[in-house]
């Protein structure tokens, strides 16, 4: 793979969760930090502790605005970290949180963020067991940044990985797509729509436990991803690439709320490219599909879960059968998602 040229700089798109983010990881970080756990490029890394397996993850949160419809940066930090562990099949053991605060940031806002973070941790049944605070001079950060890390225990028999999809598997999403990305985008620009669009940010460890409880063999869940930046498109392309399989998605079966669909039409956005913070993608063995789907639908965070596609033999790529019956590729977005101007 091509190295970066001298004089290249970080562009905002390198943080957009699309093709450029992926290139940065593969060209700059992976070769320097080379190890098998990282190279799996799953949502959390797996390390051994005697006979047990632990999942480790870390995430930085710089969302602007820090308070958005449906959530805030505190809830996002806990849910994002817990969901990365859950995507590895892990039960969260403990979290750490670090704040980077800009001089002058209102203490009342910090208290609000911390209350929300604590409430989300209670909801997930996990504690924040360590933390750190740094303050930088005014202008050197945008109000509040949060960095979180988490450790979880992976029960025996669970081994979901992006490389685990096999031809014949079914793809399930736990609910309607695009809500978080759209809520933050609309909040950032103060765009109002009839019918408020709220972020779906939520911890999903209980939902994942419910899915496992429905599987006679925990190995039947072959892959999980929480489709954050880059949306379903990025999550499925990662799985297809890591597994060496094709994935075929049925657009008509893919859940998107009428509000999100309408806003996406107006803004010229694709809901399959928008971030989610309270949804999980499952790739499961065909014979386990009905049981997992029923278990998800019985859980409050998965009522609108749906089977949206299947894994097939063939070159690693993701295709979509449109509602008109035509077929097209589902690509990874390059950088940030932008509203249309025509």
């Amino acid at each position, binding site marked *: 793979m091509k190295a970066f040229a001298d004089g290249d700089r970080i562009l905002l798109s390198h943080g957009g969760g699309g093709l450029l983010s992926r290139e940065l990881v593969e060209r700059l970080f992976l070769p320097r930090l080379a190890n098998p756990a990282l190279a799996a490029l799953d949502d959390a890394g797996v390390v051994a502790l005697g006979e047990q397996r632990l999942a480790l993850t870390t995430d930085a949160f710089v969302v602007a605005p820090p308070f958005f419809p449906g959530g805030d940066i505190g809830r996002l930090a806990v849910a994002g970290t817990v969901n990365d562990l859950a995507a590895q099949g892990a039960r969260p053991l403990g979290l750490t949180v670090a704040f980077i605060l800009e001089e002058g940031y209102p203490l009342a806002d910090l208290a609000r963020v911390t209350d929300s973070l604590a409430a989300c941790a209670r909801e997930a049944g996990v504690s924040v067991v360590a933390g750190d605070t740094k303050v930088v001079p005014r202008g050197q950060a945008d109000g509040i940044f949060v960095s979180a890390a988490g450790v979880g225990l992976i029960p025996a028999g669970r081994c979901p990985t992006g490389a685990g999809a096999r031809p014949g598997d079914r793809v399930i999403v736990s609910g309607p797509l695009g809500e978080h990305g759209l809520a933050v985008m609309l909040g950032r620009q103060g765009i109002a729509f009839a019918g408020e669009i709220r972020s779906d940010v939520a911890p999903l460890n209980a939902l994942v436990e419910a899915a496992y409880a429905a599987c006679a063999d925990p190995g039947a869940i072959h892959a999980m991803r929480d489709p954050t930046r880059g949306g379903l498109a990025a999550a499925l392309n990662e799985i297809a690439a890591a597994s060496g399989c094709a994935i075929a998605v049925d657009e008509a079966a893919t859940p998107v709320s009428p509000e999100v669909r309408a806003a996406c039409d107006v803004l010229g956005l694709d809901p399959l490219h928008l971030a989610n913070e309270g949804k999980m993608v499952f790739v499961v063995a065909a014979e386990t599909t009905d049981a997992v789907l029923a278990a998800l639908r019985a859980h409050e965070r998965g009522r609108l879960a749906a089977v949206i596609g299947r894994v097939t033999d063939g070159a690693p790529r993701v295709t979509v059968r449109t509602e*008109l019956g035509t077929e097209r590729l589902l690509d990874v977005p390059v950088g940030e998602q932008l509203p249309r*101007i025509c």
Partner: protein
Amino acid sequence: MNRYIETALSYDGPQVTFMEVCGTHTMAIARHGIRNLLPRAVRLISGPGCPVCVTAAADIDAVLALLDANPGLTLTTFGDMLRVPGSDRRTLERLRADGADVRVVYSVTAALALAREMPDREVAFLAVGFETTAPGTAAALTEALSTNVDNFRVISLHKLVPPALRQLLTTPGARIDGFLLPGHVCAVTGSRPFEFLPADFGIGGVVAGFEPTDILTAIGMLLAQWRAGAPAVEIQYRRIVSPDGNTAAQAALAEVFAPVASTWRGLGQIPASGLLPRPQFARYAVDLGEAAGAALEKAAPALAGADAGGCRCGDVLRGAIAPSDCPLYGRVCTPRSPVGPCMVSSEGACAASYRYRGVAV
């Protein structure tokens, strides 16, 4: 299925070519794979409907030169503008990483708000777009004037659609049998400004919405006109568009802007196709002329104002070639490293074609 969709899907007459001139149509047609549904005899091409794409290379160069010369300037614009390469392959995104104050906004309102927040800096809005976005710029200029936001600036690269269609049809070799007229633009202008199509050129147009059934219905309506030999301007998108359009927005446009000649990528200079702020708004208007001169001086003469090497965006915007006919398409020019604006903007014909390319590719 309505009878027009049936007409579209079952057409087996001689080859016809219809052009859409709206980035959102470009995206919708590609995203829903509508070309694959239509009979081979119906050819759909994209025209100059992507605001970012039709911005002239010389104007991009001038904006880059303007930032070079004014480090104190804050430039705001729509996100897609940031990745359009100038003649020297530099982009606003790259200038921003190098330290220039370039910010993405989703609307001119946000740019005006930023000007209020930073009264000690000049905040310029690089305004692109057609009759859809221009009324917003007009409203912002009116508000800046009435509330004395003296540090607000507008670089108007706004363009008008009807003169471009006239230019296309007077270009030798043009072969267009009908237009899918832009639904969002016509929501403002109404359908009347397009009546010259049948009157002067004997070509029909149908104002289309953006759902797959809207687009297929509009194509069926164009085919019905074509069969009957009765070109006309019709509105399929009746739930939004009327013949007269949004008269308040038209009045705001007329009050703030005067039509002026404007250079389009691929089409050259077109009389009365741009919008220049009227004299009472002159203090807010940035004239790119001087910056353009500086850009010309700096650039190698052969490159200045030209499309990057081998890029055929101009031909794509005229509908003269399909994106995949360009030798750079999908090889050296991809959304990851675009050579021309049609691959940069998600509304560009090349980007839409690439992003939603058929499974056969």
